[in-house]
Structure formats: structure tokens, C-alpha cells
């Protein structure tokens, strides 16, 4: 079946460094991609999203890049802080029809930020 996967299950960085979390997806029909942050004991928190007609989107300290040619998604976090330590998930949505709104999640990357 279709799936979304991550290259690196863990990532450790020093405070102040930039972090890059990668994600590969296999369904070329995916229309919408989201990055979520999940802290221990909490539900996933929306970080940033991007539609398939875009290749880059920026938020506050975060940037998402989409490369549809190689079906690759990345999340860049600038000036990483200890509060950024969490599990990060990418997710894809197939827009329209019976798949509307249903997310397929990647396996997750554990980001640890050292002071």
C-alpha cells in the first residue's frame, strides 16, 4: 500500500544549530502534506503544511520543502531550542473522494536538542 516514511529515526543537535528532518512519500497523488510535533504525553501539534502545487513554505523558524520529483519532504528548524525536542511526524493527505482529510503518517523522527 501507499506509505510515508522517514530516513532518520533519531536526530541529535546542539542548541542553536539548524535541524533538518526528512521524509519520503510514495503516493504521487498526495495533495497536501503536514508536519506535526508530538511532545511526550501530548497529541500531535500542527507545525506547518504545504500543498502539492508549492515547493517551499516558511513559518516562524520552520521551513518545509517539497520535492515532488523525488517524492521528498523536509522540515528545517532554524536555531533549534531545547523546547523543540520532540517526535516529528510527516503526514500526507489524498484530497477528495473517500480519502478526504485522512492522514497517512510517517514513522516519526525523535529530535533531541542538547543545551
Amino acid at each position, binding site marked *: 500500500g501507499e506509505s510515508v516514511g522517514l530516513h532518520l529515526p533519531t536526530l541529535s543537535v546542539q542548541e542553536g544549530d539548524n535541524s533538518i528532518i526528512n521524509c519520503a512519500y510514495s503516493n504521487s497523488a498526495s495533495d497536501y502534506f*503536514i508536519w*506535526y510535533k508530538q511532545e511526550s*504525553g*501530548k*497529541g*500531535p*501539534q*500542527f507545525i506547518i*503544511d504545504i500543498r502539492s502545487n508549492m515547493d517551499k513554505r516558511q513559518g516562524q523558524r520552520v521551513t518545509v520543502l517539497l520535492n515532488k520529483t523525488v517524492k521528498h519532504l523536509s522540515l528545517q528548524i532554524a536555531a533549534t531550542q531545547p523546547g523543540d525536542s520532540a517526535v516529528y*511526524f510527516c503526514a500526507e*493527505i489524498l484530497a477528495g473522494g*473517500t480519502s*478526504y*482529510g*485522512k*492522514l*497517512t*503518517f*510517517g*514513522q*516519526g523522527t525523535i529530535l533531541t536538542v542538547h543545551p
Partner: protein
Amino acid sequence: SAVISQKPSRDICQRGTSLTIQCQVDSQVTMMFWYRQQPGQSLTLIATANQGSEATYESGFVIDKFPISRPNLTFSTLTVSNMSPEDSSIYLCSAMRGGVDEKLFFGSGTQLSVL
């Protein structure tokens, strides 16, 4: 964003019993979903909770095991029936308002442990 409240936040249950999890959204939403997150793993969609009709289940999940209700546009319940230790997971409710700029938001989850 929508605020999603789940109850209970955690529970420890005996094998063979059932637990009903409640999900309350602070505003009307078009779609509600239930996800499961097994220990150390990513999220898997259980079903779409349809208002006023039977839920739509994903492959591997059935109504007899996970009955779902959605009586209105802000509330849904998920029951985990005849529990076994394999049902120990985090169960997450999510909701989407729909529209051009739809985003999927999550509750904080229900941590279920089955003995």
C-alpha cells in the same frame, strides 16, 4: 484552531472489559477521526466518525471491536471493546473544519493500558 478535549486522559483496564473515550470539540467541525498510536510507533487511522451515521472503518478495524458514535458536529465517542493487552495504546481524536484552508487538529489522547 479547534480545541479538542478527550476524556479520560489515561486509564488502566482489565482484560475483557470495555472503555468508552469521549471527544469534545469547542466548535462545529465537518470531520472527526479516531487514531491509534501503539507504544513507540506512529499514528494509524482507525475510522472516520460520521455525524448521524455509521463510522467508516479502515482496513484492520471493525465496528464490533471499536464502535464509534457521533451524535452531532462537536462530539464523538470511541469504545474499545473486550480489551486485551494488545489494545494498550494511545487513542487520539482529531477534527477538521474543512474548507480551502483545512487543518487537522488533535486532542491530547487517551493513554490506555490493559492488564
